[in-house]
């Protein structure tokens, strides 16, 4: 079946599905034609849906022997013309770290879904968490930039997956899709768009012999098997791909360019949602699953007369520092509900001078609205 | 008695040779000897001193780790024994 025929059958349909499944459908819309993975709760549903649907669009699903193999196969497929993806959770994400760095270094477009569960180690294997926010940023060794997105609803899981593929193609960088066990497993309504109305960023492929690793900030890519005889390596390399592992200048030039291509586009990549920030005295910042009770808490606090604004981060990395800095100047306190012990809260602190309070909840159970209201109210009453 | 024999030429790419002596040691008829002078990178390269002993077996060309031995087998020449 062609992809067009397959997607035309989904057009304008409404399905009641899980966030994991919505992410998989989003990938199919984006043109994903290769998936390699290894089963793990709460991410297996992504793999299961891809296993079922990919053959229908002439794509390929493989279950590999582990997550290291999965990300390896995915990178190999990407250089062979594939739009590729893998999905895992914390333990598998940890195993993938070395090759996430390889994807950064070789500027390989690909999407890595991490449906976060409670860790460290096997932790609470079946329960949700947001404990890998910093691992997504800094998990692999060496200086590097990262793009990571985090949806808060099932529909957004679908929509944002399209964005994830587009960003990975546009910036030639791996993109981490930070679901959490809550949004991944919750069932909600998704409305499927018309594929003709969806914006898909095509891969910038050069048919000519060009420098694939330099010469411009984001060079074009090539596809294996077209006679380019390209050399792809995770070692420090020159713009033609050939190794140069001793020269300080070569490394400096390459790594600064790789960082710069993301850093200089920070504001363009950064996506967020603002509510009630005009009159606010306090700000709540949240993302993913915890953004849902956070929004509820903001509404409740406003009913009670507190002037609380809300920033929902959609792009996690690169960090939306511009807006955080700006909002930070307007408020006395920032509250950050998250399902970890303050990972993003600590990042916010770098950009504001007001007090930042983590509203942490761990243990695999999401915050309730009242818990967040209570924490914020008791802090605010001190003043 | 007249027998046919390949006319064989042996070349050593001195720029590639690393003087490992593998060709010298493994050549059964003993075609090569070690040269007296160093190549540009400081190795004593082999010299095909007894070219006429070569049987054209190709071992040296295949086993040389530097692709530095080239055996050329030209048209057949008749040889009087």
């Amino acid at each position, binding site marked *: 079946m062609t992809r067009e025929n397959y997607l035309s059958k989904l057009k304008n349909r409404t399905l009641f599905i899980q966030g994991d499944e919505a992410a998989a459908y989003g990938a199919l819309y984006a043109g994903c034609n290769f998936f390699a993975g290894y089963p793990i709760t709460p991410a297996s549903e992504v793999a299961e849906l891809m296993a079922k649907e990919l053959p229908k669009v002439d794509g390929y699903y493989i279950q590999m022997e582990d997550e290291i*193999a999965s990300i*390896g196969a995915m990178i190999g497929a990407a250089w062979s013309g594939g739009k590729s993806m893998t999905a895992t959770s914390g333990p598998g994400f940890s195993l993938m770290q070395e090759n996430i760095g390889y994807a950064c270094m070789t500027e390989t477009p690909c999407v890595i879904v991490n449906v976060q569960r409670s860790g460290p180690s096997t932790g609470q294997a079946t329960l949700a968490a947001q404990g890998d926010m910093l691992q997504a940023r800094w998990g692999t060794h060496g200086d590097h930039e990262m793009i990571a997105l985090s949806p808060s609803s099932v529909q957004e899981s679908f929509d944002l997956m399209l964005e994830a593929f587009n960003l990975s193609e546009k910036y030639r960088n791996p993109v981490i899709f930070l679901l959490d066990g809550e949004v991944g497993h919750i069932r909600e309504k998704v409305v499927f768009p018309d594929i003709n109305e969806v914006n898909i960023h095509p891969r910038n492929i050069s048919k000519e012999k060009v420098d694939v690793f330099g010469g411009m900030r984001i060079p074009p890519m090539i596809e294996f098997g077209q006679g380019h005889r390209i050399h*792809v390596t995770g070692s420090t390399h020159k713009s033609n791909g050939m190794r140069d592992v001793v020269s300080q200048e070569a490394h400096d030039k390459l790594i600064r360019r790789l960082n710069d291509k993301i850093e200089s586009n920070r504001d363009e990549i950064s996506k967020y949602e603002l509510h009630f920030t005009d009159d606010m005295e306090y700000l709540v910042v949240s993302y993913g699953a915890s953004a849902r009770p956070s929004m509820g808490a903001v509404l409740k606090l406003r009913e009670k007369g507190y002037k609380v604004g809300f920033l929902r981060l959609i792009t996690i990395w690169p960090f939306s520092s511009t807006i955080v800095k700006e909002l930070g100047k307007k408020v006395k306190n920032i509250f950050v509900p998250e399902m970890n012990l303050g990972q993003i809260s600590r990042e916010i602190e770098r950009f504001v001078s007001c007090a930042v309070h983590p509203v942490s909840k761990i243990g695999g159970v999401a915050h309730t609205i009242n818990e967040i209201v209570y924490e914020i109210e008791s802090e605010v009453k001190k003043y | 008695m007249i027998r046919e024999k390949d006319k064989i030429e042996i070349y050593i790419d001195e*720029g590639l040779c690393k003087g490992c002596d*593998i060709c010298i040691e493994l050549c059964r008829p003993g075609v090569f000897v070690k040269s007296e002078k160093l190549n540009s990178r400081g190795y004593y390269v082999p010299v095909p001193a007894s070219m006429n002993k070569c049987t054209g077996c190709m071992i040296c060309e295949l086993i040389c780790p530097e692709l530095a031995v*080239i055996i050329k087998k030209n048209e057949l020449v008749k040889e009087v024994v």
Partner: protein
Amino acid sequence: MKNELLKYLRTDILPTEFCSGCGCGTVLNIFCHVVDELKINPDDIIMVTGIGCSSWIPSPYFSADTLHTTHGRAIAFATGVKVMKPDKHVIVIAGDGDLAGIGGNHLIHAARRNIGLTVFLVNNYIYGMTGGQVSPTTPSNVPTTTTPYGNTEPAFKIAELVSAAGASYVARWTTYQVFHLKKAMKDAILNKGFSFIEICSQCPTSYGKRVGMREGIDQLKDFRDNSIDLKKTAGMKDEELENKFIVGKFAERNRTEFTENLRNINRKFDEVPV
């Protein structure tokens, strides 16, 4: 006079960085002969390698599309390449530490899947690039930098292992048996399923010197004098085979190839033409 086979190499970076007398160069040399004799266009080859001296055989020297991956993962990366490019020759060349140590899991699973990769494992019995640490193929009792009192472990028999895992072509040869090796490489490349050759190779710098063989030629003579044809080993005792290099073809069987199986599933969803 230049070797015509240099046309297959990235000549601007020659001579190679391999030590004098290293078997890696011989493998590269024979591989070039094989590509030439099979008349394969290098544009139809995709080389995938890992980390180690042996991984440098194709990368950077052989001029084809080349994916130089992380340590041990070449076969995993190559799996993705082969699925997307089933008509290309996807060839992995890497070391014993890389493919049978850190990457051993990928090796046996690729053999089980019978994916159409060609894998040349260069077994120099040591971690060469990192300076001579024990590898899963180092023989017992051999002293290495990390087994200063002798290796306390037995070695993997890799060809036997890969054959047991289901590969459709498996052979073992040494860098001394150049003609057999050349023939085997051709057979491996032409075979449709997972094809594997364990190439016993000399590493004078990091291995040979620890077993009293300082020069590459010393290990080659060891290969010459101590190789034994697999066919002749039937009925021989383990003690008789100790320190021998059992060479020959270990498997050649007809099995369906993995990417072909994937494609057959996709065909089920082909539209019926109206």
